[in-house]
């Protein structure tokens, strides 16, 4: 029996013994997720237990070093853990921008002190993070950010405004891009700093989207004091870390075109809405469009698999993430447009009435943001043109 076999057996046994039954059912909605943090109220005792037990083994961040509270697992072990959790349909114990975003960045770029300060609370789900990148005036031109950090010796005084901060109103700390050198050219002169959202001068305001309420907030920074030891990496050198974080984010968003497991395929939803006539979707024009989408979506799925297989095979994936982000989000927008068309006026109900409780138009409207957030489609096309095709 190999070490991995042993690991698998032990993992399976531990999960069987420690994962509460109610944590082995698919989440019904986003509300079932556990985000942790100071302000968190657990939805159930099981949710609390499950987080606590997993955190104790460091399995909320399985591949982080044990010295910072992580699981210390290697790639193969990590894969086995994922497989064994999937086997019993165990829920993720913790959704966390700390684990997904800033943790890896601190691990890669942060000082030893920052690692010891921030990583263990992330693993335990005690501190919830949010990101401060975008600004109202900047948009795709992230490097044009204007939030200013004035050097005051041992600390900075930060002034400015951030936008599109997910859950800023629920988060405890922010990782935030600021301009520490106003004279340097754009990318140079930017730093990544960390601060507590309870620091005086920090305030937030939720953003209403065309699809309704949203997790996004505006964050106002008014003479906010940030200690110098809370800079990740070197002062003025934050752009490299920002790019690292953006690539991370883009890969997360690129999956939009894929159908969530368990949910109905577009073709099934089309049959529900329009019906079959002699084995064919009863509306010719819609059938043609559904088939075209279905072909493209299947090709996209295969491509996501191929890119991941290539990565595993050690073949470079190039700037594939830009391509996946671009195509996946455009695909999801087309899907949502088709769902609207398939359901005719039934799709238009905003409240109560109708079979969709208003979720159909909200999903449709929300999908319009997919090709804007995390780098617009236009930016992805620029990236492909310049970095892959070397045009320009």
């Amino acid at each position, binding site marked *: 029996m190999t070490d991995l076999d042993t690991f698998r057996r032990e993992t399976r046994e531990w999960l069987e013994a420690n994962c509460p039954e109610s944590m082995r059912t698919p989440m019904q909605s986003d509300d079932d997720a556990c985000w942790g943090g100071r302000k968190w109220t657990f939805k159930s005792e099981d949710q609390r237990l499950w987080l606590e037990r997993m955190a104790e083994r460091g399995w909320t961040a399985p591949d982080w070093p044990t010295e910072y509270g992580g699981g210390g697992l290697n790639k193969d072990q990590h894969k086995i853990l994922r497989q064994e959790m999937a086997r019993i349909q165990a829920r993720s114990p913790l959704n966390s921008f700390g684990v997904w975003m800033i943790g890896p960045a601190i691990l890669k770029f942060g000082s030893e002190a920052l690692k010891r300060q921030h990583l263990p609370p992330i693993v335990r789900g005690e501190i919830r993070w949010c990101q401060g990148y*975008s600004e*109202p005036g*900047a*948009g*795709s*031109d992230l490097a*044009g950010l204007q939030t200013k950090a004035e050097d005051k010796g041992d600390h900075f005084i930060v002034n400015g405004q951030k*936008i*599109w901060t997910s859950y800023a109103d629920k988060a405890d700390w922010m990782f935030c891009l600021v301009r520490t050198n106003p004279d340097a050219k754009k990318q140079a002169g930017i730093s990544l700093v960390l601060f507590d959202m309870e620091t005086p001068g920090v305030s937030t305001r939720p*953003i*209403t*989207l*065309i699809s309704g309420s949203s997790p996004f907030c505006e964050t106002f920074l008014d003479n906010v004091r940030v200690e110098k030891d809370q800079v990740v990496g070197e002062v003025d050198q934050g752009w490299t870390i920002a790019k690292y974080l953006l690539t991370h984010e883009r890969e997360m968003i690129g999956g939009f075109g894929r159908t969530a497991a368990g949910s109905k395929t577009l073709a099934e939803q089309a049959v529900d*809405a*329009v019906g079959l006539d002699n084995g064919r979707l009863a*509306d*010719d*024009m*819609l059938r043609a*469009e559904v088939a075209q989408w279905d072909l493209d979506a299947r090709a996209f799925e295969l491509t996501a698999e191929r890119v991941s297989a290539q990565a595993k095979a050690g073949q470079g994936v190039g700037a594939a993430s830009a391509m996946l982000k671009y195509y996946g989000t455009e695909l999801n*927008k087309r899907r949502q*447009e088709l769902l*609207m*068309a398939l*359901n*005719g*006026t*039934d*799709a*238009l*109900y*905003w*409240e*109560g*009435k*109708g079979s969709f409780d208003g979720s159909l*138009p909200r999903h*449709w*409207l929300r999908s*319009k*943001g997919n*090709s*804007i*957030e995390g780098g*617009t*489609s*236009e930016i992805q*096309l620029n990236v492909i043109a310049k970095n892959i095709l070397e045009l320009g």
Partner: protein
Amino acid sequence: MATLVLNEEQQMLKDAARGFLQERAPVTEFRRLRDARDATGFSREVWAAMVEQGFAGTLIPEAHGGFAFGHVGMGQIMEESGRTLALSPLLSSAVLGVSALTLAGSEAQQAELLPALGQGELLLALAVDESGRHDPACIRTRAEHNGSGYTLNGCKTFVLDGHVADRLIVAARTSGDARATDGVTLFLVNPGTAGVEVERTIMVDSRNAAEVRFNDAELPAEAVLGQVDDGLPVLQQLLDIGNAHLAAELLGLTQEVFERTVQYLKERKQFGVAIGSFQALQHRAADLFSEIELLKSTVIAALSALDEGDDDADQLCSLAKARASKVAELATNEGVQLHGGMGMTDEFDVGLFLKRARAAQQTFGDQRYHAQRFARLRGY
């Protein structure tokens, strides 16, 4: 051949409508009504002012106190109201209600109702659809002949302005199967009749629609509008008229979104320059410009064919609606995308146009429905 350019009178009408709507029913007024969750869904005061302007009487013959400006004239008002998202019963009452009466009403019905319609005192609503997919060839609501009148049973959905209408124009089957071409009759139904239930529904565009249910509602013989069993051709003409005016509204909406987007491209700076200087965006805007130019031609051709009573008016109405739906979809999607993150916020107006566009598209059939119909009318 259809007239494709406005005459002086029509141009004046358009300019006046624009001035009035921009002042009295701008997008801010739409927001106010939406956010107040107004039960009527439009402002009675603004409606009275519209009536004052003559909007409600545009299609009414002079003999009945109207202005007889025709569909080209009315279409200009619809186009301008698309630009400001003006909330009003223009489509349901001043276009569809008036047209139903002029097409099929008896002299007595016309004499009774048209003047009141022109004065905005009477509101009508057309009840045609019975499921989410527009299909006027399939009518299941039944009106059984009884001693002196009819007994109505069935359910209508997406009845525009149905919750405020004083009379409903109901397409019901008096004989034959759901899909028979004969056997449909139009009725003028008072919603206060016992057995008629009207429920307002809130739609994505914050406009009014209603579900209407009929449970053994008793109608008098005089409720019949037009010929018994021969209502389908009239209904189809009404839908053509409705679609031409929806296309006009979508044209206004599309131009407004496009102009705002082009303006944004000139103002918004990224990487130190106006984003309108990026050639990829320029080409998309130029392509959209071309699509809108083609849309303009189809809308005026459809309206003018209705006025002239041309044989191909049905084709032209489907052409206009198909193209308006397609181009409005493109323009509103491009509008949001090119406004970037701000376009996603409720604070910006572009999302409001997006929502209205899809609702108007779906009303009486979207681009796919009308492409099918166009093909059928052209014999393939």
